[in-house]
């Protein structure tokens, strides 16, 4: 192992990267675009949802409640109808995303402490669900506080019920951004190294390289190192944007977050290298990357809760770096856990890296046959 030769590969990669505008754009562009796109789904401060109102009570109190809801700016009245059925028709047609139903016996219910209103939500859009949940917090008796309600800090749950249609499962918004760090790193890192070796083979550089004293391990390490830096830079971009655009909390230590990201980056880069030694063309390398990327997204727990998956899917998921990273990053960023507490997943990633690296080095032959 010769440090100078590894250094030469690193320098070459960085110089080539500097001139590769498309890849450079991808390094910054993919995190920004994905984060902004996914970010809308977690934007809690949504304003101006179109609402249909069916105020069947039509009393001073019910009108006041509707005005209070409208005053939150979360919804704006776009239709006045008579029955919940009409609201459903409008919602199905996509004309409104929220329906407010106040039953005829509103005053009676208010007196009894029963739910006084119902908010119908188009749950096919998670943003709307979040917004509706806020709407339900509007106090029912601003003038005369309800004595039956529990202590002041508790929201008056139960007074306004939220019924979500089409997607009853609600996800915690902040869960997405930490996961997104992992998804973005999986997508970009695997791809970068997956094409790294194949590209040199396609361009004819490989015949030159293998005729030199450069060893397989030197070449592989030299190919991985520059992208570790790039991966950490991407992580910073995502964290800053998450903080700045979506006020995602960072509860754990920043060092732990970067360590976890570093472990995922290495695992993904070596996975990419492995792909690169198998693929025969850059196109094949990209197909294989996609082949790994899809299960990562679907099985890792980023989209669907890990616990709910069948055992076979869980086994596959345990083989994916993203699964372990998600547990780490959610633990650290959201629950403020330390890496030591999450040691099984901390160990899983370097193990994956070592296996992939050795496999890639063994697979790569300094031969043309």
């Amino acid at each position, binding site marked *: 192992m010769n440090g*100078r030769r590894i250094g030469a590969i690193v320098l*070459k990669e960085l110089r*080539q990267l500097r001139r590769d505008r498309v890849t450079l754009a991808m390094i910054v562009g993919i995190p920004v675009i994905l984060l902004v796109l996914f970010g809308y789904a977690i934007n809690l401060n949504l304003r101006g949802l179109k609402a249909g109102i069916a105020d069947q009570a039509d009393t001073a109190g019910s009108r006041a409640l509707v005005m209070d809801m409208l005053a939150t700016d979360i919804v704006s009245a776009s239709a006045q109808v008579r029955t919940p059925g009409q609201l459903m028709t409008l919602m199905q047609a996509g004309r409104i995303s929220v329906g407010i139903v106040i039953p005829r016996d509103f005053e009676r219910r208010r007196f009894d402490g029963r739910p006084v209103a119902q908010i119908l939500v188009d749950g096919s859009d998670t943003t709307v669900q979040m917004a509706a949940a806020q709407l339900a917090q509007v106090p029912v008796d601003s003038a005369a506080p309800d004595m039956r309600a529990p202590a002041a800090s508790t929201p008056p749950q139960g007074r306004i019920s939220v019924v979500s249609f089409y997607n009853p499962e609600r996800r915690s918004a902040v869960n997405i951004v930490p996961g997104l760090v992992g998804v973005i790193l999986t997508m970009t890192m695997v791809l970068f190294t997956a094409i790294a070796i194949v590209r040199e083979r396609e*361009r*004819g*550089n490989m*015949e*030159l390289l293998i*005729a030199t004293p450069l060893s397989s391990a030197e070449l592989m390490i030299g190919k991985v190192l520059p992208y570790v830096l790039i991966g950490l830079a991407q992580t910073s971009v995502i964290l800053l944007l998450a903080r700045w655009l979506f006020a995602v909390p960072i509860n754990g230590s920043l060092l732990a977050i970067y360590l976890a990201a570093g472990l995922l980056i290495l695992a993904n880069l070596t996975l990419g290298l492995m792909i690169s030694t198998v693929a025969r063309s850059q196109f094949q390398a990209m197909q294989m990357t996609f082949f790994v990327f899809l299960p990562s997204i679907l099985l890792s727990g980023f989209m669907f809760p890990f616990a709910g998956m069948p055992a076979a899917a869980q086994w596959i998921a345990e083989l994916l770096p993203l699964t372990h990273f998600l547990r780490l990053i959610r633990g650290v960023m959201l629950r403020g856990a330390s890496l030591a507490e999450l040691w099984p997943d901390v160990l899983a990633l370097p193990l994956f890296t070592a296996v992939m690296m050795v496999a890639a080095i063994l697979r790569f032959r300094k031969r*043309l046959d």
Partner: protein
Amino acid sequence: MNGAAAGDCAIHARGLTRRFGSLVAVDHVDLDVPARRVYGFLGPNGSGKSTTIRMLCGLLTPSEGEIEVLGLRIPAEAEALRRRIGYMTQKFSLFDDLTVRENLEFIAAVQGVPRAQTARRVAEAIEQYRFGEARNQLAGTMSGGQKQRLALACAVLHAPELLFLDEPTSAVDPESRRDFWEKLFELADAGTTLLVSTHLMDEAERCHRLAILAEGVLMADGTPVELTGRLVGRTFAVEVGDPRRAQHALAGLSGVLGVAQVGMNLRVLTVDDPDAGLRQRMADTLAKTFPDARVASTPPNLEDVFVAATHDTRRQPEHAA
């Protein structure tokens, strides 16, 4: 130089064979390449030149046969050999998106040119291969001739004892080619052994010694003079008014190996013709239709050697002493 350990022989191969599936790309080739000389591999495309070179520098494993290069057994000791050879691939294999200087620096580091000498060697290469102005130009934007000079500069940057060049001048204009060969002879004078493959006769003529390959078989080897010397008395120039039709008439004669039109003349290669009987038959055949035709002896060239060698691949290959 321990490279000359095995006599004065840089490359020694016996029974070298490479099969790709059912195709025999190289078929039991024996080679002895003398040190500090330019040795040529002459053969058409697909004759096994590249495959042979790749086996000799340890990039391809032979299906059969033994190789010794610079005293090292190949492919077992290929890794040790890599420090001592330079290899210029047929296709430009340097980095298009690095500049001339960056490519040289990269190769210097990878080839283990001592750190203290790197700057000087790179500067020398830029000077010697005339890249002064273009040192910061991206390799991908250069002309064929420039790319070839850069490839050579990179291949010799670590001062290898043995240099493999696989059709180095295929994408280059004639003037750059002459220039390039000057460089090759300078290297040979400085003690480097060069093995150059080509399908160009005029390049083959420049080599100190050459081997002719056809369909993976070594047809002949020797110095250009030895090789052409064997054909003395078998080559004729025919002056005739209608060379196209005369060509057909002659090609049908038994004993005529090849008839090629050169300008308004025909060049004829025959089997050995000690009693000049074949020459007489040619003259008689031509006289019937072309009264003005004249047949004269002409000195053989490498193209004749090539045609004679490849004419009948079933014939046993011949060897110069």
